[in-house]
């Protein structure tokens, strides 16, 4: 049956931008569908997020399709970093433990970890003993293990390929336990700065919740911005 007088009164003009924001463009999705592409920066200032790190995420729905990491601060000036390294190391590891537990939604343990961190910071006597209790409580939780198990597993070859420290081996649950041990041992061996360029392909393919858990699990103390975009352009 032909359409006869097909009076296509389609009045879809293409450049509509409601409220001044352009419409989302479609992009090929990993399932072969066409999904709207959303650019969401996981900003420099975000609760439970390493300070200064900006992750420009391209989202399909809530799955990160592409990411690009960048460090805003040029890098900590050497002065304040040298002296009380051990205390800062342990305190920073505990900060990351607080972030990971809060992102996993376990408010009670996150609050306890925050209290242990404060005690550790002002050198309270029985901070170590409270840390032991926190460590036991985290290890006993079945739901936390089930939730973090097999999330972004990193084998020895993945680590060497991305020149990451050996302490980050295993999946997010192993990294959480490693962080607690590191805090327990007084954070003597601080991890060398984390190469930010390694972050995107750890995170691509995960949804927002899993991605933030992985970033919190990497125990980022200092971020090595590597070659900033400007330098890369000048080299290319």
């Amino acid at each position, binding site marked *: 049956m032909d359409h006869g007088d097909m009076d296509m009164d389609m009045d879809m003009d293409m450049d509509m931008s409601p409220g001044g*924001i352009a419409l989302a463009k479609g992009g090929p999705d990993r399932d072969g569908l066409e999904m709207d592409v959303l650019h969401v920066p996981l900003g420099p200032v975000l609760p439970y997020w390493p300070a200064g790190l900006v992750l420009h995420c391209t989202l399909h729905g809530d799955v990160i399709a592409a990411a690009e990491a960048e460090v805003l601060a040029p890098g900590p000036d050497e002065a304040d970093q040298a002296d009380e390294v051990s205390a800062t190391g342990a305190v920073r590891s505990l900060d990351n433990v607080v972030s990971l537990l809060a*992102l996993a939604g376990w408010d009670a343990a996150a*609050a306890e970890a925050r209290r242990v961190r404060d005690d550790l910071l002002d050198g309270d006597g029985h901070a170590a003993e409270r840390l032991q209790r926190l460590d036991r409580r985290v290890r006993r939780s079945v739901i936390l293990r089930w939730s973090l198990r097999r999330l972004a597993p990193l084998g020895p070859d993945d680590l060497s390929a991305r020149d990451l420290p050996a302490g980050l081996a295993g999946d997010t649950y192993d990294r959480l336990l490693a962080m607690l041990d590191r805090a327990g041992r007084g954070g003597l061996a601080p991890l060398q700065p984390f190469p930010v360029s390694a972050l995107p392909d750890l995170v691509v393919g995960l949804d927002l919740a899993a991605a933030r858990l992985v970033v919190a699990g990497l125990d980022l103390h200092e971020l090595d911005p590597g070659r900033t975009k400007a330098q890369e352009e000048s080299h290319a």
Partner: protein
Amino acid sequence: MPELVPLATAVQAAAPVWSLLAAAILGCLVMLAAVLDGVLSARGNGAAGAGVGLRRPFAEAARLMRQRRRTTIEPDSLLWRIGGAGLLVAALLMVAVVPLGRWTVFDLDVGVVWFNAMDVLVWAFVWLVGWGANSAPSLVGGYRFLALGLGYELPLMFALVAPPIAAQSLNVGAVAAAQHGLWFVVWMPVAFVVYCLGVTAFSVWGPFAAAIGADLAGGVRAELSGVDRLVFELGRYALLAAGAAFAVPMFLGGGAGPLLPDWAWVLVKTAVLLAALVGLRRRLPVLRPDKLMEVGWLVLLPAVLVQDLVVAVVAAGRG
């Protein structure tokens, strides 16, 4: 013209006075839940004494009442408001079928299915709150709630089926009356646990609060402020209270109990179960929807089906 005998009696009982009383009781339960939650989280954070916790919900409510409402660019404010206020409406409609001793606001002969229809309404309302704000985190939170829903809804439905099989009626009063010998919670433990998980899930509470997760800056309620946020929070508490109230006639023997009159027992049992559910919030990590989906379909659903089979065999055996 055939007159409508059964429905007329049901609607007759829903004289406005009774529904106002039901709303008032739900309000008291909401306050109980809010105060208990305040005390628990204050103690959890090591704050000084329970006094702080006691005042927290009322101080928070006053603050939200005064707060000016923030809005976003091009929000769909009609759907946004409907979603926010809908949670309270759904909770009230759920409580309408719960018998308080001898009185029920809306004594429907398919009360159990009505409760199930109301908790599916919550799917629509929470997604609308996420959608209406036109912001990325709240939209992702709304979709997360739907993904959670696909995980917990079918087990919850089959858990709701078990008591009516034993009571051989879908009327909530009949289900409560059928437990005079032995409470259903005793020989339907799996259905009771899955039901409680379902109640926690549709009130976006405790381990099922991925939709308002901290990793999404508050998810569905990220853009809510002022009175909208207060209504949303009251809605969540009201759903928790309504779920606890509905568990009493279904699993905990309705008004049965020594000494106290039956309506008093219904309130006591509801308060106890509500306190247990409120306590869940801080104690367990949040279950992510992609993880819960497989557990819901491959673990919870078969367990509840086996429970229904056992109940059916016992009910058939008893004749």
